[in-house]
C-alpha cells in the first residue's frame, strides 16, 4: 500500500495530487473501477461523483432525454468496468465516451433538438448576471440560433469530436481514446467541424482567426 498511486492518462489532468495515503482515504476513480470488478457495489460511488457532469454533457446534446441516457450510460459503464484501463484514460473521459456512444442511437433526437433551438432562438431571455457581462451575453444570445443550426448540420462523428472537446473538455488524446480513432483522425474531424461551424455562422461569426490547437 502506498501513500499515493497516481495514474497517468493521455493528457494528465490539471487537478492537484490527491492524498491517497491511508487505507481509508477516498479511493481514486480508477481504484473504484478496479475494485468494482470483484466488489460491484464500489461502482456506485462513481455515479455520485460523475453523474452531474455526464448529465450536463448529455443534456446539452439531447435535452430532457438526458435523464434516461444518464442511466443507460452508467449501466453500460458498469457492465464494461472490467475492460476499463486506467493507464489509457481517466474515468470521467471514459464515461463521456460511453455517453457519446449511447447518444449514437439518438442522433435524430439530437438534430431535432438543435433545429428546434435554432427556430426558437431570438426570443429574449431573462438573466440576473453581472451587468458587465451584458455585452458578451447579448452577443452570445444572438448566436444561439445560428450555432444550434450549425451543430445540426455537422456529421455525427465530427460533432462528437467537437462537443467532446467543447463541452466534455477532453484533450485530443482523450477524444482519440474514447472514440477509438487515431489522434490524427481527431484533428481532422475537429478541423472539419470547426471550419463548418464558422462557415455556417457566416456574417454573424464573432470568431477571431485563432489557432485551433491552443484553445482547449
Amino acid at each position, binding site marked *: 500500500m502506498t501513500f499515493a498511486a497516481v495514474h497517468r492518462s493521455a493528457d494528465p489532468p490539471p487537478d492537484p495530487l490527491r492524498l491517497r495515503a491511508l487505507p481509508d482515504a477516498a479511493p481514486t476513480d480508477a481504484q473504484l473501477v478496479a475494485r468494482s470488478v*470483484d466488489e460491484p457495489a464500489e461502482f456506485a*460511488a462513481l455515479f*455520485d461523483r460523475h453523474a452531474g457532469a455526464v448529465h450536463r454533457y448529455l*443534456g446539452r446534446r439531447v435535452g430532457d432525454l438526458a*435523464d434516461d441516457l444518464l*442511466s443507460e450510460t452508467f449501466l453500460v459503464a458498469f457492465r464494461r468496468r472490467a475492460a476499463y484501463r486506467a493507464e489509457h484514460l481517466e474515468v470521467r473521459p471514459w464515461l463521456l465516451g460511453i455517453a457519446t456512444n449511447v447518444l449514437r442511437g439518438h442522433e435524430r433526437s439530437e438534430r431535432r433538438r*438543435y433545429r428546434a433551438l435554432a427556430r426558437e432562438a431570438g426570443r429574449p431571455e431573462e438573466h440576473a448576471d453581472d451587468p458587465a457581462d451584458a455585452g458578451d451575453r447579448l452577443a*452570445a444570445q444572438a448566436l*444561439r440560433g445560428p450555432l444550434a443550426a450549425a451543430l445540426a448540420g455537422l456529421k455525427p462523428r465530427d460533432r462528437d469530436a467537437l462537443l467532446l472537446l467543447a463541452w466534455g473538455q477532453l484533450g485530443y488524446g482523450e477524444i482519440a481514446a474514447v472514440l477509438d480513432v487515431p489522434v490524427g483522425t481527431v484533428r481532422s474531424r475537429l478541423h472539419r467541424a470547426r471550419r463548418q461551424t464558422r462557415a455556417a455562422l457566416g456574417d454573424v461569426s464573432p470568431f477571431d482567426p485563432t489557432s485551433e490547437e491552443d484553445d482547449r
Partner: protein
Amino acid sequence: MNDLTLLRQAGPDAAPLSTAARSAARAALLAEIEGASMRTPGRPAIRIGRPAAVRTGLAVLTAAAAWAGAVAITGPGAADPAPNGSDGLTLVAVEEITFPLSLDPVPAGMTPSFTGATGDPEAVAGYTAPDGTGFSISLSPTEPAWGDDPYLTEHGTTTVTGVPARFATGTMPDNTCTVANVCFDDHPVAALAWERAPGQWLSLRGDGAFGNRDALVAVGESLVDRPQPITLQVGLAPAGWSVVDWHESSGAVGVADDADPTRLIGVQCMPEAPAGANEMDNGSVEQRIASVTAIDPVVATTVGGRPAQVVRAHDYMDPEQRFWLVAWELADGTLCTVHAPEDFTQDDVVAIAEGVVHTP
C-alpha cells in the same frame, strides 16, 4: 471569442439534473449492482457507496473479539428464536458488531469510522479531523508490510508501551489534498507498526498533525481493549449464518451462510447526506422498491412501527437471480433495506428487518 468559447457560452444548455432523475438513474444502477453482487461468489452482499470520504478497511480482530462477535450465537445467551422461521430456518440473535479497541482519551475533534471484513487487515478504524487529516488503526494477524511506499523515506525503530515498534515518516509532495478537499504543501505522513499482543499486529498511519512518529506512538499508547459498537447492528440472522462484512461509512452489513457463502443477506441503512458537495438523495421506500423487478405484487408492511414495503424480485439482467427486498425509512430519513435469498419466507425477511438497529 473563438468557436469553443462560443459553444460553451451560446451553445444549447442543459437543464439541471433533477433529484428525481438522479434518484431514478442511481436506483437503476444499484439494482444492476445488487444483481451483480448477488451473483459474485463469496462476496458480501450489498454495499452501496456514497463518495467514500470515510476511512475504510477492516475486519476482525481476533477470534475472541470482533470476528467471533459477528457470528450469530445460538447458546444460552441467544435471544429466543424468532417465531417466523420456516422450512428449518431459525432466526437467532446476532452478537453486537464492534471494533475491539478504543482510544483513551479520544483525540479532540476526531470522528471515528469502522469497517470490517474477512481478510488482512482484519479491521481498520479511521479517525478523521474536519480538514480530512487524521490516522487509521489497522488490525492484522500477521506483521503488516508497508511495501515500497515512495513517501515513507525515513525508517527507524521505537517503542509503544515498551514494545518494540518500527516506524517510517515522509512528506507528500506539494499540492496534496485530503478527502475533505483541503490541500497542503509538503504534507507530513507517518506509519507505525508493532505486535500489541501475540497474533495481534497494529499498523497506524497518520498524516498532518498525526504524520510523525511521536503522534502515532501517543495514539498507540492510548489504545485500550474496549469494544466500540458500530452504528448499524443486525439483531437477527438465520442460525448458521455469520456477519462477514461491515462498513460503517456505507452503512452496510453483509451476512453469509456458513455452509454456502454465496448465499447472502445484505443490510443497509443510509442516512441522508448533509447538504453540501456530497449531498445525495436516497430516494423513498417506494422508489427503492421500484428499482428492482418485482415478481409478485409489492406488499405493504411495517418495520419497527414504520411503514415498509417488501417484494420478491429478480435481477435486472438475470431473471433467474431472485431475492427478497424490504425497505423502510427511519424517522430521521435514513433509508434501510434488507436483501435476502428467495428461499426465505416473507416473514423471515421482515423479521430480520425488525432486528436491524441503526444508531447514528
